[in-house]
């Protein structure tokens, strides 16, 4: 898995990124789910990673996670080839304010437990604190 070689880069800075984070995401609603990558939108102003998440009864829900822009990730060595369809990932962030199954994607964890910061320079949510 391409993300494995990358160090965990966690910023505690609280600031606006390109888009005011709090306009789209509710920082009081942390979320952390595990699923299989169904799609990657490697586009500006922020990439989107979609996960198929299966619940205890086998029902599958598709979640979308908005992370950093392609350029900012590329400068850190994360490219569109770092995330592949079919990869099993755990992603944590904050839920969308519109009630959809969308969220910010702050930290991605691969199957072997390696974590990589992919977020928008926002405060990490409680499930992300070490």
């Amino acid at each position, binding site marked *: 898995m391409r993300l494995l070689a990358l160090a965990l880069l966690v910023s505690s800075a609280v600031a606006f990124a390109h*888009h005011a984070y709090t306009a789209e995401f509710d920082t009081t609603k942390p979320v952390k789910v595990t699923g299989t990558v169904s799609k990657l*939108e490697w*586009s500006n102003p*922020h990439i989107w990673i979609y996960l198929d998440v299966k619940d205890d009864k086998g029902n599958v829900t598709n979640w979308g996670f908005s992370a950093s*822009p392609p350029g900012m990730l590329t*400068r850190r060595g994360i490219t569109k080839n770092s995330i592949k369809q079919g990869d099993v990932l755990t992603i944590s962030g904050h839920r969308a304010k519109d009630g*959809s199954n969308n969220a910010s994607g702050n930290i991605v964890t691969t199957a072997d437990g390696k974590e990589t910061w992919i977020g928008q*320079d926002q405060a990490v949510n409680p499930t992300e604190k070490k």
Partner: protein
Amino acid sequence: MRARFLLLLAAAAVLSAQTAKIPRTPDGKPNFAGVWAGPAFTHVVGSGDTDTPRVTNFDRSKMAPFQPGAEAKFFQPPTGDPRHDDPTELCLPDGHPREALAPYAQQIVQTPDSIVFLYEYMHFFRFIPIGKAHPADVDLTFMGNSVAKWDGDTIVIDTIGLKEWTLSASNGWHSDALHTIERLRHLDPATVSYEITIDDPKIFTRPWSQQFQMKLHPTWSLLEQVCEENNRCQGGVCSSSK
């Protein structure tokens, strides 16, 4: 006394050697050409010529005191409307000097009579003549009107004509009287000191400055960054759903 003199002499020799080694153009001026990680990077260069971008703002402790009543103009409270709270959500420009502090690469192209900044973020550019004066009647724009001059090995860029806009990503609003002075000089062949002076007499009681660094990345080239491509904030409403 003698030891101190020798130490000073050694320090001067080191400084002189570093200065001598900086890249120069055929006319002997410092050469800033290349693709740089600007002030909004950590400048910890990793394998593969990586660097870490980080949203960067001006340091509140560096700022001068506010003019009477100006603090409220600068720190305008959020309204919930992204057109006010952060217009870049709608892909409006971040403008100067916020663009210089954007966590994206920037390329400098230099000729004997101009220095050009190509910013990756939103594809903005600044074409800056060297040795010329500002026009007499400058329209107010997002990037302003800039002219440059040499001060020894430092390029000094003077900018006026900026419309009232956000100073940096979360630092509030400057006025249309904003005047900036940027000073770029090499610290070594791959590192440049970037000092910017903020002179906004409608907001601050005196000019104030903050220094950053820029790091040259020889393997980088500018990437395309089209903000509107997949933007989820349309018409002033931000929704994570398409």
